[in-house]
């Protein structure tokens, strides 16, 4: 695997999508957890904890989509029609949850605060579900003829994609609960930690189930994961998952260690899932039909963007980190955000 420009772009896009999961995962997770916090003051606090940063978080999704369009236009042109209902559902769900940040405080007339609470909750959950199902659709393989999607219109709806969707919903809920553990104290933190234990358990169950099903989707996956001697190399991923799971369980059960530890460990689990996904899919961008090289934009396109991305992404990360730093620290009940 020589590090050519196309590979570099694949890594950069994987990085963008992972940053999206890191930042918007807990953000969406808060909406998924809304039903467990029925009190208005708790909901205010949860929403205020991400209000200054949520649109920056979602911008990474735009970079993921825009980057795919620019660096791998063929993949963008095949995946999005193949998952059309999922993408439309995700976009509309993001509309609902995004406007709730402002509208919730303005509610009047036929749309009460509860309406926008519901929009935040439903929007976050549907967006997470659609993202997981899109991933599942991609992983289970997309039928391609020529340069276009050639599968059926319900290919995205299978037990496997539903499993992936549900796993992402619970996984984001885990991230949301760990974020609350970091940003709150007292009763709300207690409840967040309790929710994190449950969500953590279900998330690991989801990881195990998806991992067990994946090798049987394509023979290539089977050979990559379960054939000697390659198994020795790739086995490091499940081993690390087991280690992190135990560590997370310990941190959440005994409550010792810093409050950021569970969030970091949960993100570690996501990173390992990401690595696992990479092991399965490489060198395809659309298994089993289109490789990264086949979908790649011409070198002149990739190079034009790469120069800018190498300079700009670190700057973006720096001022994003600064924004988080400005709004660091515990949220206080009754004090609002400020």
């Amino acid at each position, binding site marked *: 695997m020589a590090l050519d420009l196309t590979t570099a772009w694949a890594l950069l896009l994987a990085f963008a999508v992972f940053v999206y999961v890191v930042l918007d995962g807990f953000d969406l997770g808060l909406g998924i957890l809304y039903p467990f916090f029925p009190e208005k*003051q708790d909901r205010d606090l949860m929403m205020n904890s991400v*209000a*200054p*940063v949520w*649109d*920056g978080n*979602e*911008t990474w*999704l*735009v*970079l993921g*989509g*825009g980057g795919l*369009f*620019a*660096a791998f*236009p063929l993949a*963008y*042109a*095949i995946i*999005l*029609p193949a998952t*059309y*209902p999922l993408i439309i559902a995700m*976009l*509309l769900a993001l*509309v609902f949850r*995004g*406007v709730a*940040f*402002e*509208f919730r*405080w*303005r*509610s009047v*007339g036929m*749309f009460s*605060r509860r309406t926008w609470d519901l*929009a935040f909750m439903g929007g976050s959950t549907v967006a997470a579900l659609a993202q997981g199902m899109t991933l599942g659709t991609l992983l289970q393989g997309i039928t391609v003829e020529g*340069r*276009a*999607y050639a599968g059926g219109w319900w290919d995205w709806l299978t037990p496997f994609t539903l499993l992936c969707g549900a796993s992402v919903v619970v996984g984001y809920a885990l991230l949301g609960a760990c974020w609350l553990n970091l940003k709150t104290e007292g009763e709300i933190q207690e409840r967040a930690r309790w929710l994190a234990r449950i969500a953590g358990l279900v998330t690991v169950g989801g990881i195990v189930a998806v991992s067990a099903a994946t090798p049987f989707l394509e023979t290539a996956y089977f050979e990559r994961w379960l054939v000697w001697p390659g198994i020795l190399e790739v086995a490091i991923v499940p081993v690390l998952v087991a280690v992190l799971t135990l560590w997370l369980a310990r941190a959440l059960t005994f409550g010792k260690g810093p409050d950021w530890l569970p969030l970091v460990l949960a993100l570690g689990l996501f990173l390992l899932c990401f690595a696992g996904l990479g092991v399965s899919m490489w060198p395809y961008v659309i298994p089993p039909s289109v490789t990264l090289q086949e979908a790649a*934009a*011409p070198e*002149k*396109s990739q190079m*034009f*963007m790469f120069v*800018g991305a190498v300079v*700009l*992404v670190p700057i973006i990360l720096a*001022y*994003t980190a600064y*924004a988080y730093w*400005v*709004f660091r620290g515990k949220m206080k009940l*009754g*004090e*609002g955000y*400020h």
Partner: protein
Amino acid sequence: MDTFLGLDATLLARIQFGFTVSFHFIFPAISIGLASYLAVLNGLYLWTKDAAYRDVFNFWVKIFAIAFGMGVVSGIVMSYQFGTNWSVFSDLAGPVVGPLMAYEVLTAFFLEAGFLGIMLFGREKVGPGLHMFATAMVAVGTAISATWILSVNSWMQTPQGFGVNADGQFIPEDWWAIVFTPSFPYRLAHTLTAAYLTTAFIVGGVGGWQLLRGRVHNAAARRMFSMAMWMIVVTAPLQVMVGHEHGLNTLEHQPVKIAAMEGHFHSHEDGAPLILFGLPDQEAGEMRYELSIPHLSSVIFGLGWNGAMEGLDVVPDEEEPPVAVIFWSFRVMVGLGFLMVGAGLWGLVSRWRGNLYASPWLWRAMVAMGPSGLVAVIAGWITTEVGRQPYVVYNQLRTADAVSPLGASAVGWSLIAFIVIYFAVFGAGVLYILRLMHREPDLGEPDVDAEPGPTRAAGITPQQQFDRGRSAPAE
């Protein structure tokens, strides 16, 4: 043929794109202008220490937060819709337009979103200097965003600097030529000026409304009205000139679009008339009930009294864009443009006579014209986008050949979902914005983030505070 409610998949995809992009553009048109206005207000406040500037800032920043949020979520829809509904376009044109859009994300979207939180929430946390910097970065971000996306649109209107490979993909050859296409500077100037003018009319309309409500002694209400009238008297005539230059550029590069805008079905060898009104009959290729001024079109385009202008008859029927839509949307835009110039002059005369704050009829006119910028902007985009049909990349790729291989029912249902949800959600947002515009600007209002109260986000005053006079909060 595969249809949904009698419409084929391509037409449905076009309606969906037109609907979602029109809805979307309303918000950036406001936020480009408002972001700059807010940066100016904040800067003037820090410089002069005149509290009225801060009061106007605090009044508009809440409206900006809502408009910006709606712009973000409707914008995410746009960034994915190229792939969902125009997958052939994405595959073929992606190597050229994709990187420009990626640069928009990297240089603009992150900048706006990254500093927005500090602008809205952070004045107390970071101090006035960094808060000013964050406010300026948001304003700069909106302008950079407009620059890249107009570069993309301009390449699609006047493409150059590319080759075509074996797969039929457009391949970049000269990035400089791709970014700076012939129509780009004109389109950028015209669109940015439009955003500033649109915002000036919204601010002026709200100022007029405040004055009509008997708030003449509210310094913030007077200040916003006065600033808007200055802005209008400068930018409205400027916009007419920029628009004219843009028209000359379009005549050079897209003469068929001009023929449709002017309603010229026939070529004119010795001076083309300016058709003021008429009913275009594209089937017959004629303008019915035409009311026109001889030779004036040729004169306006600088071709002289007897300058020749080509009509739609120089291209085959299947190369003609739909004339009626373009003919009328163009007239709506230009008509509003001249009304705007008139409103600016009225304000200037009123100011010169010293009765800017004693002219109820001017205030009423400004309230009536509050949304005029938005209408003109949408009409202008309809003119230019419909005007390049039947092509999506002008003279290179037909719209009908660029669409995703989706069934008509899939697109039909998503279109219905977009229409229902956009009207409900953004309708609610517009309602909230109107309520904020309606309330009297607070004088000496504490800084947005120093306000007390448990339930606040994005510079928001709790319901019970701004609903003074109402017996109970809406909840």
